[in-house]
């Protein structure tokens, strides 16, 4: 089993900020729009380097989505930045009509997703965004696992034509992926090969999955850990290949179970290769204020919860 380590914890949003700045240097058609959250989204680097290509729209997210869609006409590549809540639920119809249905090359970049936003509470803890975005035709949905991968994913979006949703978060999480690793949209990454179960995780729960795999290994259980950083298009080949080997599937994500990554995998397996399955995620409830780590534990999203689900799954296999 491959051991993953990290030297520091870093926030994924600063990976986005770094990637955006690099994208702006590579391509002068890159423009960035922000709805009064430049600091939270770590967009200052881009703003300072390219003030003429940075557009502060104020607290008016619906307008921001329309403006971004319009800017593609003329060849611009807009990256919008605000919290996941205001990037999706608040502006669903604008995204649906002006971006997704119109096939516009807009990158919707969403920070502060999920429970681990923490103390601000459920009004801001968006847990339905993956579902809303994956339901839209033409839309790609990407959830990188750490700082380095968020930077790489932001750069990958530069060369991806079409609407895309990039989800990341606020807290500092283990930064363990290789900074030089290329990001391939739609290609899941096998982090550890295993025999007994397939453990599919997305976002910062990939690290929790690796920790869970370590605990399982100590019990003599071999878990295959796969980073599903692209939820749509889902890497069906990778998922099926793994499950054909292990015979069961466990998914883990910081999102409602309804509409999440696990649901996509369940649909794939149900129609192609039905196996016993367990899902780690939020069970049809809103979040609450608290420290991120406490919330992860209470809502059953940490490594320990993943281990518990894995043991239940193996009982059913």
């Amino acid at each position, binding site marked *: 089993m491959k051991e993953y380590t990290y030297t520091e914890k870093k926030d994924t949003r600063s990976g986005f900020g770094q990637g955006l700045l690099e994208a702006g240097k590579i391509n002068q058609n890159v*423009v960035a729009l922000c709805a009064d959250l430049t600091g939270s989204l770590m967009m200052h680097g881009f703003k300072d380097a390219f003030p*003429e*290509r940075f*557009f502060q*729209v*104020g607290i*008016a997210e*619906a*307008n*921001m*989505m*329309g*403006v*971004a*869609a*319009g*800017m*593609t*006409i*003329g*060849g*611009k590549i*807009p990256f919008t930045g605000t919290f996941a809540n205001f990037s999706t639920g608040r502006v669903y*119809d*604008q995204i*649906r*009509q*002006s971006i997704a*249905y*119109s*096939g*516009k090359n807009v990158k919707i970049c969403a920070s502060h997703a999920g429970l681990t936003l923490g103390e601000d509470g459920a009004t801001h803890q968006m847990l339905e965004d993956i579902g809303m975005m994956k339901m839209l035709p033409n839309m790609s949905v990407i959830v990188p696992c750490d700082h380095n991968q968020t930077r790489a994913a932001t750069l990958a979006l530069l060369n991806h034509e079409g609407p895309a949703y990039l989800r990341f978060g606020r807290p500092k999480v283990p930064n363990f992926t290789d900074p030089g690793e290329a990001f391939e949209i739609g290609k899941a990454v096998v982090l550890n090969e295993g025999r007994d179960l397939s453990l599919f995780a997305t976002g910062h729960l990939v690290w929790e999955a690796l920790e869970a795999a370590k605990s399982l290994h100590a019990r003599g259980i071999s878990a295959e850990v796969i980073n599903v950083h692209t939820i749509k298009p889902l890497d069906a080949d990778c998922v099926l290949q793994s499950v054909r080997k292990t015979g069961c599937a466990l998914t883990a994500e910081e999102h409602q179970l309804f509409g999440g990554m696990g649901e996509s995998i369940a649909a794939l397996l149900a129609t192609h290769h039905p196996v016993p399955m367990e899902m780690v995620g939020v069970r049809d409830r809103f979040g609450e204020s608290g420290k991120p780590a406490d919330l992860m534990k209470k809502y059953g999203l940490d490594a320990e919860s993943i281990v518990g689900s894995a043991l239940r799954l193996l009982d059913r296999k």
Partner: protein
Amino acid sequence: MKDSNELKQIARQVRRDILRMVYEAQSGHPGGPLGCADLLTALYFSVLRHKPEKFDMNAHGEDLFFLSNGHLSAGWYSVLARSGYFDTKELSSFRKINSRLQGHPATEEGLPGVRIASGSLGQGLSVACGAALSKKLNADPGLVYCLMGDGEQQEGQVWEAAMFAAGRKIDNLIGMIDYNGQQIDGPVDEIMPLGDLKGKWKKFGWKVIEMDGNDMDKVLEGLSRARDLSGKQQPVMVLVHTDMGYGVDFMMGTHEWHGKPPDDEQYRRAMANFEETLGDY
């Protein structure tokens, strides 16, 4: 450049097209496009600097038009076809299956002339702001036009865009409001009064002019004034006073024909109002 009399001839044919499309589909919105037929004709045959035969999504160097009130699609499709974006024969596919002429405008099927989907109201002005900013970044001298409905002014996003365009000094943008006073459920003043609409746009920082939208000479003069007002650090708004259903005696002065097709007898009576000038499709 066509003169006013030629434009009036074209507008008559556009009105025939609108009625025929909505009648043949037995579905659609005749009232709004009949009221805006003069405006749309003036734009597509006289005002816009554009290349109908070589449709380019990015339209470098061209003027752009966005129809935010997408339910006026029948009128827009007619002027797009008549000005050369696609064959007028295709107008017969309006609202039918396997057509590029969707009930509300869309890009999905690749209809030349359409650059964004519209229909869900309130979004077009934001898109137009973005396209205008894109032109500024590209040092492109083209202007961006956007038509909205008056009922559409009830959408909050319109005012987000109003604030944004003035705040960012988007002066290559000309907004237009089809000020016919009618919406689906009844007169705008009854459904949700707009109050001093002209004053509101002025207070939001726009240059505002008004014109009669059903008098071709006044439309040309108004659009010329709007162009002269562009490029001066402020966006421009034109309140276009029209009659919903203009030209069809029994469709005017009511909201009844906002979104319903005529029956056989009504169609015959409606078409009798306009001579065939360019040949029916």
